[in-house]
C-alpha cells in the first residue's frame, strides 16, 4: 500500500494540472463566499440569517473544481491508456483505489482548508459591514465557537467526501468528461428537485438522501432541530455515497478488462 501511495503521489506532483486545480478550488471557494457575504445583509436583530452558512456558499463552486480534480486522477489514466501500466505495476485494484483515495483526499484538503479559511477570513472582514453586528445578534465569526468550527471544518470534510465520490464514479465510468457530468448532475440536482417537489414529505426525504443536500447540513449552525437531517448525520449520508461510489468503482475495476 505504501509503495502504491508513493507512486500515486509521484504521479500527482509530476504534472502541473492538479496543482492548478487545487489552487483554483481554494480561490473560487473563497471568492464566491466573499461575493455572497458582500451581497447578503442583515437589517435588524432577528433577521434569521445563518452567517456561517452564507460565508460557506463558495463551497458550492469549489466542489465542482474538486470533482474535476478527483475525476482527472482516474480519467487521465484511461484517456492516455496509462491505466494498464498502472495496473501492471499495482495489480491489486483495491490497493490502487485506496492509494488514489488517500492522495485525492490529501490534495482536496490542501485546497479545502485554505479555501474554507479564506471564506472565514472574508466573512469576518465583510459581514460586520453588512449588518452582522453585535447589535443584531451576530458576534464576529470565531472558529473557537463550536457550531462555527463544525460548519467550517465540516465543509473541508464535505469537499473531501465529494472528491472521493467523484473518484469512485470516475473509476466506474472510466471517462473524465462523463465522470464530471455524472458527479455535477448528482450534486446540483438536489436543489433543483427540491424546488420542484412541493410535497413536504418528499422534500424532506430528498434533503435527507441527496448527497449534496444532506452533506451541506454540516454548514448549518442555527435552527438545527428543524433541519431535515442533522449536521453530522448529513455528512454521514454523503460519506455513505462516497463509500458506495468507491466500492462500485473498485468492483468494476476488478471485474472489467483494463
Amino acid at each position, binding site marked *: 500500500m505504501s509503495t502504491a501511495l508513493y507512486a500515486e503521489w509521484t504521479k500527482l506532483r509530476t504534472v502541473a494540472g492538479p496543482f492548478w486545480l487545487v489552487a483554483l478550488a481554494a480561490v473560487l471557494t473563497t471568492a464566491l463566499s466573499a461575493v*455572497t457575504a458582500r451581497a447578503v445583509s442583515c437589517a435588524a436583530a432577528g433577521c434569521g440569517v445563518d452567517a456561517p452558512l452564507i460565508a460557506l456558499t463558495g463551497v458550492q463552486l469549489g466542489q465542482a473544481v474538486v470533482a474535476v480534480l478527483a475525476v482527472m486522477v482516474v480519467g487521465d489514466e484511461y484517456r492516455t491508456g496509462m491505466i494498464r501500466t498502472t495496473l501492471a505495476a499495482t495489480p491489486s485494484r483495491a490497493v490502487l483505489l485506496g492509494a488514489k483515495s488517500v492522495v485525492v483526499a490529501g490534495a482536496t484538503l490542501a485546497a479545502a482548508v485554505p479555501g474554507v479559511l479564506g471564506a472565514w477570513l472574508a466573512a469576518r472582514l465583510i459581514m460586520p459591514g453588512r449588518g452582522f453586528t453585535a447589535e443584531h445578534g451576530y458576534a464576529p465569526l470565531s472558529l473557537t465557537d463550536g457550531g462555527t468550527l463544525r460548519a467550517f471544518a465540516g465543509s473541508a470534510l464535505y469537499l473531501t467526501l465529494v472528491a472521493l465520490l467523484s473518484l469512485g464514479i470516475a473509476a466506474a465510468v472510466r471517462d473524465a468528461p462523463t465522470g464530471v457530468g455524472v458527479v455535477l448532475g448528482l450534486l446540483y440536482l438536489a436543489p433543483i428537485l427540491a424546488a420542484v417537489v412541493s410535497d413536504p414529505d418528499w422534500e424532506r426525504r430528498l434533503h435527507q438522501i441527496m448527497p449534496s443536500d444532506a452533506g451541506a447540513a454540516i454548514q448549518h449552525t442555527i435552527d438545527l432541530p428543524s433541519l431535515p437531517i442533522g449536521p453530522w448525520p448529513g455528512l454521514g449520508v454523503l460519506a455513505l455515497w462516497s463509500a458506495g461510489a468507491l466500492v462500485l468503482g473498485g468492483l468494476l475495476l476488478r471485474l472489467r478488462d483494463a
Partner: protein
Amino acid sequence: MIGLVRAELTKFRSVRGWLVGCGIAAVLMVLLAVVAAAGTDARVGGPRARGALPHSSDGTPVFDGFTFVQRPLDGDGTLTVRVASLSGVALRPPTPGDTAPEAPSGSEEEATTEPWAKAGLIIKAGTTPGSPYTAVMVTGSHGVRMQHDFVHDVAGPVDARWLRLVRTGGTVTAYASTDGAAWTRVGSAPLATGAVSAGIFVATPPHQEYEQFLGGTSVVGGGAIATGTFDNLSAAGTGPGGDWTMVSVGADDSPNRPESTSTREGDTFVLRGAGDIAPIDGGAGPKQEQLLSGGFLALTVLAVLGVLFVTTEYRRGLVRTTFAATPSRVRVLAAKAVVLGAVTFAVGLVAATAALLVGTAIRGANHYPADALTQVRIVVGTAALIAVATVLALAIGTILRRGAGAVAAVVVLITLPYILSAAAVLPAATADWVLRITPAAAFAVQQTVPEWPQVDQAYTPAFGFFPLPAWGGFAVLCCWTAVALVVAAALLRRRDA
C-alpha cells in the same frame, strides 16, 4: 458546407455512446417530470385549493373579493363620486397559537397605507366572483387607476380624488378629476350590455413583507383592512329610487378576512373591508414549467456530449484527419455547431414534449394555467435552450481542449447561478442581477406565470420569476455562446492541430 455538415453528422451518429447519451437525456427529462408531478402536494395549491378560485374570462385565476355598495344598472348611466379619504393598514399578524386575528377595530398597527388599497367606482356584471367589471379607483400609493377584467390596468392622474364611470352601450369609460369640474379621460373598456351592478367599493390585498434567507423565502404579513370615505355620490341611470345596498363580494374566500362594513351619514359613505380585485400570481403553487425541470439534467448530459464531440478528436489525433480533409477550421467548427445544435434541439423538443405530456397526465391541470401558446413557448424554448447550451459546451470544449474542465465550466456557468438564485441563497436583488448576466438567464423561457404590475408580489427568482423576458433571457445565453464560438474559432486558427 453541406458536405461538411453531413460529415460531422456521420461522425456524431456513428458513435453509439453519443446516441445512448441523447436517449439518456430524454429519459431523465421525462423521469424528472414524473417526480415533479408525483411530488406535487395537493395541500399546497392542489386542485381543491386552486379550483375554488374564480377565473377571469380569459382563464386567469383571480381574487375577487371586496366591499361593494351598489345599485342595479340596466342601461346607460353615469356614476360620479369623490373619495374623501382612503386608508389601508395592516392588521397585527396573528401570534402563534392564535388562529384568527382579533376584531378588525383596535388591532390596527401602523398608519402606512397599503400600496394597492383600493377605493372607487365599479360597474360589474353581477356580484358573482370572477364576473367582468370596469372600475376606476384611488389607490394607496399608485394614484388613480382604471382596471377592468382583472388583468388590465391603466394609470390615471396621481392626485385626482373625483372619479366618474360612464356606461354607453357596450362601453364603459373612466374619468378622473382633481376638482370635480375638469375631467380627464383615463380609459375605456367594453362591458356586456344588460343588467349590471354599479356602485362604490373598497378592498385591500393582505399586508405582505418578503424576507429572503438561506434556503427559502418567507412571507411575513397578514390581513389588512381598507377604509374608504366617499361623498358627492351621484348615479344617473340607476334604478329609480333604488337604495344603496352593501354586498360583500366573495366573502367566504378566506375565513380570516375581516368583515365588510358600510355606514352612511347623509351623503357620506364609509366602507371598510379587505380582499382584492386582481389576478393571482403563481407564487408558491405548482407551475407547469416545473415539469420541465429535467432540462437541467438533460442539459448536463448533452453538455458532456457537446464537449466530447470536439475533445475526442484531440484525444485520438482524429483532429488532424479532420483538418486534413477540411483545412478551414472555422468551417469545421461551424459544421459541428450546426450538427450538434440541430440534433440536441430535436432531442430537447421530443424530451420536453414528452415530459410535459407525461407530467400533465399524472398531475392533471393542478397548476397555474398556461395557454397553448405559452406551452408551445416553454417546450420550444427549453429545446432551444438545451441546443444552444450544448453548442456553448462545444465552444468551451474547443477552447479548453480538456473534457473534464469544459464540462465543469458549462455546468457551473448554467446551473450554479440558477441554484444560487432560485434556492434563495442570494438576496433577491443580487439574484436578479445574476440571472441577467449569466447563461442561466435563459431559463426565463420556462416562466409561465406572468408578472402583474397591479399586484404587489415578490417577483423574485425564488418564486420562479425571472428578471428578463423569455426571449431576452434566451438572448443572454446566445450572446455567451456567440462569444465562446468566436474565441474558439480564433484559437482554432492560431493553434497547431
